[in-house]
């Protein structure tokens, strides 16, 4: 029986869905803050538009932003398996 050692390779995990959700939250919050300060008039369409725009931007950010480093170091490779047992010597005549 043999065991093949698998090498760990760095890879990038993208989060476009998370980016879209947080972008939507940011857009709605920005719309509300601008409206309570009367920079923008109260308007449901404006809230929807800002929410959608920042949701799209957040999704793009979650997909194409520069990746940050891994939180953990690469995992240690498992220890080498024991050598197979040697066959017994042939008996003497």
């Amino acid at each position, binding site marked *: 029986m043999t065991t093949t050692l698998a090498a760990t390779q760095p890879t990038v995990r993208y989060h476009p869905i998370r980016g879209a959700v947080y972008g939507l*939250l940011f857009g709605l919050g920005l719309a509300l803050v601008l*409206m309570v300060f009367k920079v923008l008039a109260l308007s449901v369409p404006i809230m929807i538009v800002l929410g959608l725009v920042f949701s799209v931007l957040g999704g793009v950010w979650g997909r194409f932003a520069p*990746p940050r480093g891994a939180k953990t170091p690469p995992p240690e490779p498992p220890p080498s398996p024991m050598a197979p047992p040697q066959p017994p010597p042939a008996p003497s005549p």
Partner: protein
Amino acid sequence: MRPTTVLRAMLATGVAFGALALCGSAFAQNQADPNETLRALVPEGQPGDLDVTEGDAIYKQIASAVGASTDVADFGDGSELTGPCGGFAFSYDGDGKLIDAAADLGNDSPPVDLLENQQAFTSGNPFKVDTRGVVAYFGFSPQTGDGPRNHKWTIKTAGVSLDSGGDSNGDAKNRNAGLVDLGKELPLTFSFKTKVSGEMTSENLPPCIGNGWVEFEGGFPLATVPGIVGTLFLAGGLIGLLFNSRPAMTWKA
């Protein structure tokens, strides 16, 4: 023409315009300020619940003063009131201090800001209302004759219906007055500027349609519920974008 001559001509023209402007402003200050005539008709302190008789008397004084001293003639900037209706509204803050006053004579002229003698309910001059205060109002429809029978009314803002109602008005009343205590009617305070539209239809009169800008004042904006919610959404979204949705390196076997 030599450059120095051009410069001298421009300087002389500028001085001439400046002198004319100074003369014009001096001329305006020498005339009686029409704002004071109108402003004097508005009670400085909260008048209490108006009745129709009292409101009618105040309205007649306002109507004669507006006709004599205002120069607001053209509709524009999002403010109008059409149909056989008119009246006035006085807005007071939570401490009873007057913050705004407007009137409409039920004719083709736009509503008038009684404190500043310009068009009221516009985007640049919205009608100010304190969400902790009150609004005293008087309205008529029409000024003479039977009032609206089986009328229905709606008020909308930001594309959303705020309120609606109606009445058979069997007595054909054509006037109404009262006091709206926003501090008691509203569940929370808020600060917004919004366009409000209203319409009243009836069996016997043409529709009364109004559009205008209203500015709600509820104290420091971030201390109101919408302000707090907006701040939380904004901060939460920003933190999530910066720290929880950026692509991340990871290890894969």
